[in-house]
């Protein structure tokens, strides 16, 4: 209401009477919005009531009570412990985690590939830039669903487990997936993970301090090697301190499949590669646009004062390019995450795949779809919010 009051106290206005108030633009705008909100709410309420009444009239179960019932079906890939006696809610959680895993891996892969190809597109090397252009045109112009199916078919036609492609007896590639040797489970690994995270945090703090130092004194401290040392050195130290465990878990063909080691399923790989390559084409174009948005003169000026190429990129081109890159990159990330729902086609147990099963077991389509929509909405909004936050960091500071 405060802006209403302000407008009514405005300078050269006539004395506020009821008539004036009703005809004031402020009131009209405000009233129109209220009316619109009420209509939207009522339409929503009407649809909701209509669904509930119809379902009740047909004796169809409604409500979210089913989430606590036993799911009674199994899931192929689970990030957390799950079996058929767990609840539907937990099955949804398994699906959500699988969606997050493939999305996160997809975002990393698409970003790395996209940036590499984007840089290659503006490279002065003719062959490299043409190859990059060809890549972009191919991955960008084939529907993502076809790309996912293509990779699924390619992976399915790899040799079977008994005729596995064998890489030094440590890595095996079959149509059941990629099985590879990993260090045997050891409590030291968890601490190494923590050390890795700590290394990243310390490297960020170090770089920040180095920049402050440079801004104060003008002296440049190269943090590249110290940062890498922190990120990889700390876990290595922990490993040594933990007695340097070297036991390996090697995949061995037992019965139908490889046991031991770690396995990446073909469904996951097909989906990941399909959605990540597709997104990388768009990201490459976004990166190219960003790089080309930096005026050439600035690059030439930077070179002429003798900056190393790495620093030209780091301190002249990228800060300006990122302002152009980040906003469209955000929508690429969000759409990649939503594209992961193509999983149903290849059989990766993502949220939609599991939601479909739940919907069919319980028959509660409205509720199951509502759960899926809510979850996608939430992860999309969180992704956008994080990226908007990052955008504010790299955007031009207007004070």
């Amino acid at each position, binding site marked *: 209401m405060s802006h209403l009051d302000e407008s009514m106290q405005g300078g050269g206005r006539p004395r506020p009477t009821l008539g004036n108030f009703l005809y004031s*633009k402020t009131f*009209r*705008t405000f009233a*129109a919005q209220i*009316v*619109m909100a009420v*209509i*939207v709410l*009522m*339409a929503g309420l*009407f*649809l909701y009531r*209509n669904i509930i*009444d*119809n*379902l009740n*009239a*047909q*004796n*169809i*179960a409604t409500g979210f009570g089913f989430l606590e019932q036993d799911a*009674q*079906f*199994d*899931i*192929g890939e689970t990030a957390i412990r799950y079996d*058929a006696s767990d609840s539907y809610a937990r099955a949804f959680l398994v699906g959500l985690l699988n969606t997050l895993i493939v999305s996160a891996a997809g975002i990393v892969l698409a970003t790395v590939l996209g940036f590499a190809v984007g840089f290659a597109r503006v490279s002065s090397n003719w062959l490299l830039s043409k190859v990059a252009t060809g890549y972009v045109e191919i991955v960008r112009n084939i529907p993502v669903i076809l790309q996912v*199916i293509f990779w*699924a*078919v390619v992976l*399915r*036609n790899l040799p*079977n487990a008994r005729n596995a492609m064998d890489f030094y007896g440590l890595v095996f590639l079959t*149509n*059941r997936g990629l099985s590879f040797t990993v260090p045997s489970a050891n409590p030291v690994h968890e601490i190494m993970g923590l050390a890795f995270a700590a290394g990243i945090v310390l490297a960020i703090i170090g770089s920040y301090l180095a920049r402050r130092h440079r801004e104060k004194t003008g002296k440049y401290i190269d943090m590249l090697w110290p940062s890498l040392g922190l990120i990889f050195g700390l876990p290595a130290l922990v490993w040594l301190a933990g007695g340097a465990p070297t036991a390996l878990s090697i995949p061995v063909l*037992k*019965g*139908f*499949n490889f046991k031991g080691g770690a396995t990446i399923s*073909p*469904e996951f790989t097909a989906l990941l590669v399909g959605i990540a390559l597709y997104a990388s084409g768009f990201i490459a174009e976004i990166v190219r646009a960003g790089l080309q948005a930096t005026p050439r003169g600035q690059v030439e000026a930077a070179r002429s004062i003798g900056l190393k190429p790495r620093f030209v990129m780091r301190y002249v081109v990228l800060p300006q390019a990122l302002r152009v890159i980040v906003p469209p990159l955000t929508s690429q990330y969000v759409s990649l995450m939503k594209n992961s729902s193509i999983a*149903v*086609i*290849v*059989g990766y*147990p993502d949220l939609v*795949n599991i939601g*479909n*099963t739940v*919907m*069919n*077991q*319980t*028959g*509660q*389509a409205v509720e199951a779809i509502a759960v899926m929509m809510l979850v996608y909405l939430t992860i999309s909004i969180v992704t956008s919010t994080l990226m908007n936050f990052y955008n504010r960091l790299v955007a031009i500071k207007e004070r």
Partner: protein
Amino acid sequence: MISIYKSMLSCVTVAATLAATAAYADSGDTLATVKERGELLCGVHPARHGFAAPDSQGNWAGLEADFCRAIAAAIFGDASKVRFVALSSQQRFPAIQSGEVDVLVRNVTATLGRDTALGLNFAPPIFYTGTGFLVHADSGVETIKDLDGATICVAPGSTTERNVAQIFASRGMEYTPVVIENNKQLVDAYVTGRCDALTKDKAALPGVRAYDTTDPKEHVLLPGIFSKEPLAPAVRQGDDQWYDLVKWVVYATFNAEELGVTAENADEMKGSNDVDIQSLLGTTGDYGAKLGLDEDWAYNIVTQVGNYAEIYNRHFGPESATPLDRDLNTLWVDGGLLYGFPIK
């Protein structure tokens, strides 16, 4: 200001349109609706050879497709007045609930959960089957026990998905499910060896072997049936007359076989002295009128579609592309489960 009114107006229009279209799902007089429409909307499987699948001429062929025709024959005296609506396993229940189809004859296993929570009523089962497994012939798998640790291809949202979990858990065995919605992709995953076994209702597997694999000899059906899957036509709750009609169409095909009435001899049988045959063919009593149909409703079913044995043999008989032992799907007098209630 005008733009505000305009947007308000558009908002009201949207709301009004929603109100107009969000009509009550029709649960009342299905028979009258069907008669008025002039055709039956029948929900079927998109491609399950033997049950419902388009043949080489694009006509729907299969046991379930024929039961759709039998219902149409009973109502219209014309078995061709059916519009087949192909439904995926995810779409099938919303489709029958919302009134998109009049009856669902789509490999639906009758279960208590579906009968109650889904608001459905099940007519008598038209096919008794159970979970079966198709395995690669060269894998050396001979019984279910050999599948410990196997990877199993299964379609989502079916009772099969639950059965596999139960079958393996109860035997203390492990497996990895690969769940793919698209049937083509699912079968392809099995055929290329991504999975050690493909599991479906056993009656569906001969069709897969005959039509979807490159060499049917490379695949064998595991012996045994591992669950109870009574496949039954389903209708919405709340319309008893329609439910009765579908139920008695099914019984009529059973009774016709039991009484020896076939498509060929039906005319001749009309002159029979047997009162059961007379009741079936409408020469005695007013049983058609009791169902809201013509008196020759069952006569039309038998002459245009056939009795149960004729329908079965057309799609699963020794001469068919997907031969399958009748097994449980024989009349009660032959030791099977088909038992038509008397038309009296």
